[in-house]
């Protein structure tokens, strides 16, 4: 797989996010490499999820949230991209699997249908492709018409990944995707991330140090200052961060001394 090491999917520039007067994120500047897995780590409440939700502008849904700075996707400011187009190209996986109370098929077909795909043949094709990509096809191919809620937690999460992949995104945002899953299901998700890397850029928020170390190429470590605003301590290649952290704080955190 040929990957341009200098290709940047996102360029976050001086991003600050506010909830009313409370500053949740302070002046973050961070490049996100194409077709790499970037993990965001840091103690609870340091604004990791807020940061992640900035990439597909999910923060816009929360009243009283405002932001400064900008995020460039490829060459465009994400605020200049139509919100529907942006969210179509930047998929999101949530902390708790959130399949719709519909059939497995309908869950995966939901996105394409929302974007106007009507032909059944085409939908079936997309559903199969997406389920294969998320390594769920073999487990569910005989019961596509069964409710998605009948699946196990790990399967539900992979279904959510298939659902996101069905609209052909080039980025996947994952907000602690394995925190509600058992270790085996969690490993499956990590394997899946590696398989998907060639197609999508992945940004993952995680509480699990080993997961970040195992599964990601780049790591960004966030902390919060005295005002409880999150800031970026350092970022770099995962191997470097975990072996030669540049800051004492990072070392303390990854060795489990706080957080």
């Amino acid at each position, binding site marked *: 797989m040929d990957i341009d090491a200098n290709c940047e999917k996102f360029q976050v520039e001086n991003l600050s996010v506010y909830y009313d007067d409370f500053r949740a994120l302070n002046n973050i500047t961070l490049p996100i490499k194409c077709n790499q897995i970037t993990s965001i780590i840091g103690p609870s409440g340091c604004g990791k999820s807020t940061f992640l939700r900035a990439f*597909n502008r999910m923060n816009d849904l929360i009243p009283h949230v405002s932001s400064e700075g900008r995020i460039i996707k490829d060459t465009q400011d994400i605020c200049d991209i139509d919100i529907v187009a942006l*969210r179509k190209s930047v*998929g*999101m996986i*949530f902390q708790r699997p*959130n399949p*719709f*109370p519909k059939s497995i098929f309908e869950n995966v077909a939901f996105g394409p249908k*929302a974007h106007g795909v009507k032909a059944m043949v085409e939908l079936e094709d997309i559903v199969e492709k997406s389920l294969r990509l998320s390594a769920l096809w073999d487990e569910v191919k005989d019961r596509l018409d069964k409710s998605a809620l009948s699946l196990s937690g790990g399967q539900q999460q992979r279904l959510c990944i298939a*659902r996101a992949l069905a609209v052909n995104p080039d980025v996947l945002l994952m907000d602690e995707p394995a925190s509600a899953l058992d270790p085996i299901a969690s490993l499956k998700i990590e394997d899946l991330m590696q398989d998907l890397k060639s197609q999508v850029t992945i940004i993952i928020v995680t509480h699990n140090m080993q997961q970040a170390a195992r599964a990601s190429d780049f790591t960004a470590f966030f902390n919060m200052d005295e005002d409880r605003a999150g800031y970026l301590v350092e970022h770099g290649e995962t191997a470097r961060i975990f072996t030669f952290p540049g800051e004492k704080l990072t070392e303390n955190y990854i060795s489990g001394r706080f957080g």
Partner: protein
Amino acid sequence: MSNQTESILAQAKNKRNLKRQNTVQVFGYILVWLCGIIAVAVVFWIIGYVLSQGLGVINLEFLTTKPAGGVSGEGGMSTTIVTTLYLVILTIVIATPLGVGAAIYLVEYAGDASRESKLVAFLVKAARTGVEILAGVPSIIFGLFGFALFVSYLKLGFSLLSASLSGAALILPTIIRTSEEALHTVPRSYREGSLSLGATKWHTVFNVVLPSAIPGIVTGIVLSVGRIIAETAIFWVTLGGSYYLPKTIMNSGRSMALHVYMLASETRAFDKAMGTASILIIIIILLNLSINILSRSLTARMIGNE
């Protein structure tokens, strides 16, 4: 006093306390149990009395012949059953889209709109308060309103249409409130999941939120059906009371509840009033059972363990 005596005394005191607590427990239990029994007994007594007085006149002929009018209350109740059915269908058809639509606006859209404009915020608040107040207004007030507006002013006369419009106004608060509650119980994660796929808000509301809220909304509608079947005063002043079968929605008619009232107040056929009342009660009971079955099966279908 030695330590030993003290501890024996303490033990005895503990025992007394325990015994008293037990007595209070048992007494409380009996009291609550009695309350329950009395409540249930009263309901069964009323139902039993009506049925015992009414079942005697019920036979196929009573159910299938038209009322013939007159002070002796000749005839059966066939037209009133059909009229009640017409009335229920027409009222629900009018009230459901309005009520569910209003609830969708209040839950999904009013919040954003209120933040953008003070006037909208005020109107939304007024609407919410209005719904709360309307839910507690006696039905005869809705009847008088319907009589003044639909029957007289709009010249719709005593008709199925006037009655259904007034009935719709009566059940709107119920439908709005139950639908609002149902929409509120839909997890935010469903909405986020849909929006994060690039689906528009409209698409999200109609394809994810609304389907998930259906069991709750259906419960509200079935409750309203019960209300329409049972109400009398409101239809007395809007539906009229003709015992003929309405041919169009502009005709007057007589629902079962109205028939009970008219038989009881204007004829000597008290047994037939009781007979009609029995049918009414049986239908209400069946309706309530159907709510349970319906909402359980809808929920089961959603969760997927049929």
